[in-house]
């Protein structure tokens, strides 16, 4: 009888030991998304990054994700992953900052990464992408292509990333045509296709002939296509939604970063750090330049190359604020810390920043 027990116990033990052994040589990476993976925008791009990671590292890595996680309710999602044996946990929305920080403190042995925030811990890194670099390029393209000298801009929320995007867009546009005007509509949502479409319609009706957007759905671009005007894609290559209207897209590309960080966890070289990568690092990618004359395409490619090589800095002085004060002196450039917290418009924008 006792022997029988021993055998069972030994078998059980060996099973659990092998189980642990298998788990040990696989690195488990968990993602927490703020939206549904089917949004074809922000969360979708992060999930493409996850799939890329899975493909690159194959059976050396196991990935999973929690989607549509409410920001204020997200501590549980991070804890769930931490307690389920995930060694690298990645939160992709600014609103996850405090909950993720809290959970990271309770699990010092687990590595955490947080996108678009600024609070770090010994086991919590931050990362984001310099999307404003892409916006400088599309600003230049818009200035070349617009006949009415007016661009319509569908914006989500007045956070620094979006405001900096509008400024960079305008600086790019003004570098080509100082008379460019931008009309801005805030839809107060990252994702509401109907409202985004209505906003684009309003902008087109008021004389904009190019639509730029900082919201997630393809609806504004589609409205441009319907009206026979032009537009830009957001987050991914959206050309299939508007083959005639699209000029280029600003694509998010997280995959390489995820592979790099996962490898660092595998090698034991992972360290808490801040990454803010742009075109150069490949975190921001430009979609194909289409529906434009060759000289405009050439200009866009040149600008892209100049930004990549560091020759061109979108926030290089002299920059005047909307109220006429000097934001950046000639010969200087806006430091990263200020771009990260930007809350003023450059001169030439009529709108007021919603406070």
């Amino acid at each position, binding site marked *: 009888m006792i022997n029988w027990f021993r055998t069972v116990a030994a078998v059980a033990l060996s099973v659990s030991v092998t189980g642990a052994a298998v788990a040990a040589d696989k690195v488990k990476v968990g993602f927490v998304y703020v939206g549904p993976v089917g949004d*074809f925008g922000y969360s979708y791009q992060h999930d493409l990054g996850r799939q890329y990671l899975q493909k690159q590292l194959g059976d050396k890595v196991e990935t999973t994700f929690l989607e549509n996680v409410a920001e204020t309710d997200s501590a549980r999602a991070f804890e769930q992953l931490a307690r389920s044996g995930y060694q690298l946990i990645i939160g992709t929305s600014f609103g996850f900052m405090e909950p993720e920080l809290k959970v990271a403190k309770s699990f010092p042995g687990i590595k955490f990464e947080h996108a678009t925030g600024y609070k770090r811990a010994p086991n919590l890194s931050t990362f984001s992408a310099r999307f404003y670099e892409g916006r400088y390029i599309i600003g230049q393209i818009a200035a070349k292509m617009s006949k009415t000298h007016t661009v*319509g801009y569908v914006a989500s929320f007045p956070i620094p990333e979006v405001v900096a995007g509008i400024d960079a867009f305008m600086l790019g546009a003004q570098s080509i045509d100082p008379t460019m005007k931008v009309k801005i509509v*805030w839809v107060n949502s990252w994702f509401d296709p109907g409202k985004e479409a209505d906003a684009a319609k*309003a902008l087109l009706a008021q004389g904009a002939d190019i639509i730029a957007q900082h919201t997630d759905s393809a609806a504004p671009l589609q409205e441009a296509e319907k009206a026979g005007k032009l537009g830009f894609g957001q987050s991914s290559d959206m050309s299939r*939604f508007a083959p005639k209207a699209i000029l280029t897209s600003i694509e998010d590309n997280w995959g390489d970063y995820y592979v790099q960080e996962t490898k660092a966890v595998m090698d034991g070289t992972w360290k808490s750090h801040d990454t803010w990568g742009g075109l150069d690092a490949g975190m921001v990618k430009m979609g194909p330049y289409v529906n434009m004359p060759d000289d405009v395409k050439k200009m866009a490619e040149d600008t892209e190359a100049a930004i990549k090589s560091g020759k061109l800095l979108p926030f290089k002085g002299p920059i005047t604020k909307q109220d006429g004060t000097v934001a950046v002196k000639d010969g200087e450039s806006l430091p990263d810390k200020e771009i990260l917290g930007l809350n003023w418009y450059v001169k030439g924008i009529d709108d007021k920043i919603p406070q």
Partner: protein
Amino acid sequence: MNPDIVQLVLVTIVTAATPLFIAAVGELVAERSGVLNLGVEGMMIVGASVGFAVAYMTDSTVLGALAGTASGVLMAALFAVLVIGLAANQVASGLALTIFGIGVSGLIGSGFVGQKRTAAQALWIPGLSDLPIIGRLFFGEDLFVYAGIALIALVAYFISRTRAGLTLRAVGDNHTSAHVLGLSVGRIRLLAVLFGGGCAGLAGSYLSLVYTPFWSPGMTAGRGWIALALVVFASWRPWRVLGGALLFGGATVLQLHAQAFGIGLPGQLLSSVPYAATVLALIVLSWRNRRGAAAPAMLGMPFISDR
């Protein structure tokens, strides 16, 4: 102001109002029979996903719209089994239907994320559609708009002018006497609920086939709730549903125009205008005729025949 802008604004308002009034007029019929279905958002989102999926696979907007409508009817049938067949609580069943619909639509739609279709073509009558200001408004909308308005006219006529409409109202106002008179309360309510589901499904497919021709999860973005509110707003009268939808759609669209125009008010303030306007309009209406418009007396109450 430039007449072209006026025309574009008017057309945009109608487009924004269309999914609202199509869904609301269906819910109105269900509520007139005495059944409160809070699952409009759920039926709409399923209609949006099924409508897009079928339209994409068959490459036909009409088939998509039909399938979207049918899926709304199916969802409503599920609801009817619960609240008519089993006398379950209507408020909770409707909310459960919405949760269920959000999940099901996501499962159905997951294979169609990132796919696109061309939007349904708008009507174009040479001459008439070219008229300034009103041309496109009256003669250049897409077919859903005309179908939706026809639906309202039909429902208005049905409720006030036909015998069957009288029966519907009788059931909604006093199911016990209706039953005593020999009316089949359950069957009439079933038909009304199925009609409401069909309308919600059609309204949902309008979103994914015309408004923004692609599928994405949660794309109804609360429009089902607005449709429910519009029925109350309209005090259960069909034409007022259209008025309410145009008011709400108008406030939504005009605040976007105000922003594009550079009016300089906080975006949050402007975004809340449609909701505040709805309440204000209702206050004004109530001021004029206090207690003038009551809900169907049996709204929300299950009917149990005592035998």
